[in-house]
């Protein structure tokens, strides 16, 4: 386990240094995107329209924050991760088209995303689900918000962060995926549990 501290924009070379079980802290710009924002971003790409912010080398955060507005100034009050598996249907295209280097979320992602990360050089950093204040404390500034018409949870929030983490590198760019490994072990354990409870599969 090695601890890395990266500043955005992160290069492909740096992203490829990370291995599963490493710990990562990100400083710089992270952008939130959930289901609707992923969908719209990919639609924009198809139509050849630029995104409101260039995501190259940045970290994308699966998060719908609690925010408050004082005059023109937004503050992130609570900003933990949302379940990433919902974004599995978009993420391979997203990584390929927008060249993001870190996906931050909770719950892990599947084979398609793992393959895309290996191919294009990106990692998945698991942030503790529900640890919303830990996350919010690392957000130094809300730089902007786009696509607010999607509602505050689904909008693109652009955060300036300092040592955002700890992120457990759970999928690296070498085809490793902790969540898939745990799933395999759980399947093995399932047989033991069935046996203990006197159940037939």
């Amino acid at each position, binding site marked *: 386990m090695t601890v890395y501290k990266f500043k955005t924009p992160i290069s492909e070379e740096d992203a490829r240094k990370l291995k599963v079980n490493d710990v990562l802290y990100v400083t710089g710009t992270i952008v939130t995107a959930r289901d609707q924002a992923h969908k719209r971003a990919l639609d924009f790409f198809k139509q050849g329209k630029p995104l409101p912010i260039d995501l190259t080398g940045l970290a994308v955060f699966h998060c719908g924050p609690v925010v408050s507005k004082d005059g023109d100034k937004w503050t992130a009050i609570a900003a933990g991760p949302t379940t990433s598996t919902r974004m599995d249907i978009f993420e391979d295209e997203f990584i390929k088209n927008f060249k993001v280097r870190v996906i931050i979320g909770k719950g892990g992602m599947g084979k398609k995303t793992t393959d895309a990360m290996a191919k294009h050089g990106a990692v998945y950093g698991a942030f503790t689900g529900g640890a*919303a204040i830990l996350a919010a404390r690392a957000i130094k500034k809300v730089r902007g918000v786009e696509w607010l018409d999607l509602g505050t*949870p689904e909008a693109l929030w652009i955060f300036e962060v300092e040592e955002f983490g700890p992120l457990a590198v759970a999928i690296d760019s070498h085809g490793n995926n902790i969540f898939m490994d745990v799933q395999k072990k759980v399947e093995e354990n399932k047989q033991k549990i069935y046996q203990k409870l006197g159940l037939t599969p």
Partner: protein
Amino acid sequence: MEKAKIVETVAFNILKQAVIYLPEDVKQALEKAYAEETSETGKTQLKAILDNIELAEKHQAPVCQDTGTIIFYVKAGAEAEGLDKIEEALVNATRRATKEVPLRPNAVDPFTGKNSGDNTGRNIPYVNWEIVDGEDVELTVMTKGGGSENVCIGGMLVPGEGIKGLKKFVVDAVIKAGAKPCPPNILGIAIGGGADISMKLAKKALMKPLNEPNSDPEIAKLEKEIFEAANMTGIGPMGLGGKTTVLGVHIDYAYRHPASFPAAVAFNCWAARRASARIHANGTVEYLTHKLKW
């Protein structure tokens, strides 16, 4: 103060308490899990959870950004006055809490996808009513996040398989849910009644304190057995592996139709938020789960 105004203030207060402060029994269970977890990654997750709980209290901010769908349980004394004004007061309290705590607006029109922006909409906040003796009104709020809600499951089991069928149903549900409901989780399980009744009872069971096993020793034994089985899965904190997958299991039931065996499993995340208060007929208020801290 008029009754509706008291209800509104109390509902606002318990909403604020619930989203900022976890109940003591949940905190204790998480501390115990942290002390006992052997997986290194699992331990780091539990540490982040405990740090986050402390920070939320210190900064008076919601413990999780997903402040959930807001559900109230009202135990209304049959002799209490102003019951017809309670639902309106709960809606007003929800709007105020959304703005002032603040809460994340989580009420979306399922047809248009439009967010109402204030956590209210058709049937939301949802109010579960129960009529009891006396003049008091007891309000409980549960704010439950989407992650744990998305893996709740109801099923119609085979009566001939009995409780064995239930055990398999629950183990399979926990394994299928995996990392998604932010483990360690609390499981509310209910059987019988009907498809709707078992799910309602399962969800309600999530509000029982973790240190209160079922008063029926046979059911308490089953709770323990399922608790141990779920923690054998190895899913662990946040699904990153470890021996803490659930913090507790509560089981409830209703009698069933001879041909039916409805079963439901409701999941709660570690941020198991709930708060209650009792309003007496003379307008005095007793906060039952949290001491007012502001």
